[in-house]
């Protein structure tokens, strides 16, 4: 290594140092110790003596998968992603397409409006939605006008998860809409014009031009949104506390609950399972993106 390069290296690490210290202390070390803790019997009693614990191999993981509530929480999270994600994407794409044309000012206004729920605190909007969804709440009052007797959405095991999903879609749609709008704007005008001259209908243009060209953007949105949905927690914390009868107990909620019970080892193991699932899902989706291109 030349003197000049050594000097450059010193300067560069000087610039990186403040970040690297904080990043190592509060990101890398916890990430690695989470893995280590998942193989130990650490509990709340060991919080002040974290090195004074026993290595128990895969026992925490075994315990996890023997707990029917855990497997149920994974299934619940899975349902949330498998149903909620495509719905969010379809709605976001529909909004993006309808906001892509038309007057600039009007579109900016609507864009901001549809994006507004994204910036609001989940805890705060959960409070509002709980109020809307209660037995004699706004939603059931509106349904009653059409002669429909709505259930007590959040207290019914059949509807609670679905109700949370509706709120989550409302809350997250804006993010995808913005990403999709950016994607739509990168589609060259002349391709569309050429298709119009050939007499292609709007639907035909959408299916044969927009969708294929949007594929990378759609996949990016899918990855980001599935990572968010795999972690859903606040909604169930504020609205249902995981209930009724664990019907909204998500994987994250389970992790938080085990932590609350002081079972740090089990909680860490559950975190790593979720982390692993998120990583696998992301990698799979990126693979999909590459092979399809």
């Amino acid at each position, binding site marked *: 290594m030349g003197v000049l*390069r050594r000097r*450059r290296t010193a300067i560069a690490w000087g610039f990186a140092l403040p970040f690297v210290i904080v990043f190592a202390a509060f990101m890398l070390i916890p*990430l690695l110790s989470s893995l280590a803790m998942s193989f130990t019997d650490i509990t709340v009693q060991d919080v002040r003596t974290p090195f004074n614990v026993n290595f128990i191999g895969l026992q925490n993981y075994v315990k996890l998968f023997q707990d029917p509530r855990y497997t149920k929480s994974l299934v619940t999270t899975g349902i949330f992603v498998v149903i909620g994600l495509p719905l969010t994407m379809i709605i976001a794409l529909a909004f993006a397409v309808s906001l892509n044309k038309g007057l600039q000012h009007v579109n900016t206004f609507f864009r*901001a409006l549809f994006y507004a729920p994204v910036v609001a605190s989940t*805890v705060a*909007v959960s409070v*509002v939605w709980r109020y809307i969804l209660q037995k004699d709440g706004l939603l059931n009052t509106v349904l009653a006008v059409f002669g429909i007797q709505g259930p007590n959405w959040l207290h019914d095991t059949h509807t609670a998860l679905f109700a949370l999903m509706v709120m989550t879609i409302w809350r997250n749609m804006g*993010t995808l809409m913005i990403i999709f709008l950016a994607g739509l704007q990168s589609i060259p005008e002349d391709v569309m014009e050429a298709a119009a001259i050939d007499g292609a209908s709007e639907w035909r243009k959408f299916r044969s031009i927009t969708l294929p060209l949007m594929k990378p953007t759609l996949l990016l949105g899918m990855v980001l949104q599935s990572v968010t949905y795999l972690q859903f927690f606040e909604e169930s914390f504020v609205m249902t506390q995981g209930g009724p009868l664990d019907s909204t107990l998500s994987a*994250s909620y389970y992790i938080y609950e085990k932590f609350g019970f002081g079972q740090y080892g089990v909680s860490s193991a559950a975190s790593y399972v979720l982390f692993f699932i998120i990583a696998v899902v992301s990698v799979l989706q990126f693979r999909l993106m590459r092979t399809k291109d």
Partner: protein
Amino acid sequence: MILAFIAFVWIFPFFWMILGSLKTQREIMAIPPTLWPKHATLSNFMKWFTQLDFGNYFINSMVVAIIVMLGNMVFCSMVGYALAKIDFAGKNVLFGMVMVTLMVPGVATFVPLFVEITNLHLLNSYASLILPFLAQPIGVFLMRQFMAGIPDALLEAGRIDGAGELRIFFQIVLPECKPPLATLAVLTFLSSWNNFLWPLVAAQSNKMYTLPVALSLYSTGQNATDYSVLLAGAVLVITPILLLFIFLQKYFIQGVAMTGIK
């Protein structure tokens, strides 16, 4: 027209929240619910300001969000500069690490983080609420991407004039970086303001609660159906960020478009 109708439905929960926050305890329980408050009252808000210590939670949220925001602006732009403009040993390792941790969800680290913070004797302090969020990989990514686009010739001109790296960074590079810095500021302020899981765990007394934590703890348990007060609380939590959003819309939306992360 259809769009306008859907938009109305879309933001109706916000209207409903504001209307509900102005209703009396009696009226909010009415079946069927009333649309406009019959006797609009500010007493629900007053309750937050007098009995419920809103000022304290607001200050906590503000202090944490502002320090997290400033910290990320400084730290991330510094690493971003090194990664974008200096060729050095270990560069790829550093950048690789930042990119990999972009994907790490908050739940993957919060248990050991709790153990660590406890042993550093920082639990229930501002430090515990701030430190874990001071260095976010997303900020590094954002700054590096932008800085890579600044022409090297500009930096070379500075070097020829005899400026050191620090001067080049502060006087040439940073002034060019206003757009990504604004985006980063908005992103980190927003995520800090709305952050929930970690403050819920790390703030252990009324004195250290941030707004979302205070609201969530008030909204579960015996106050769960005290909706008029709850909705007033929700208004108080959402309003500052909505105002910020109205004025800085461009940067919020740029943040999503540039990084794909809210």
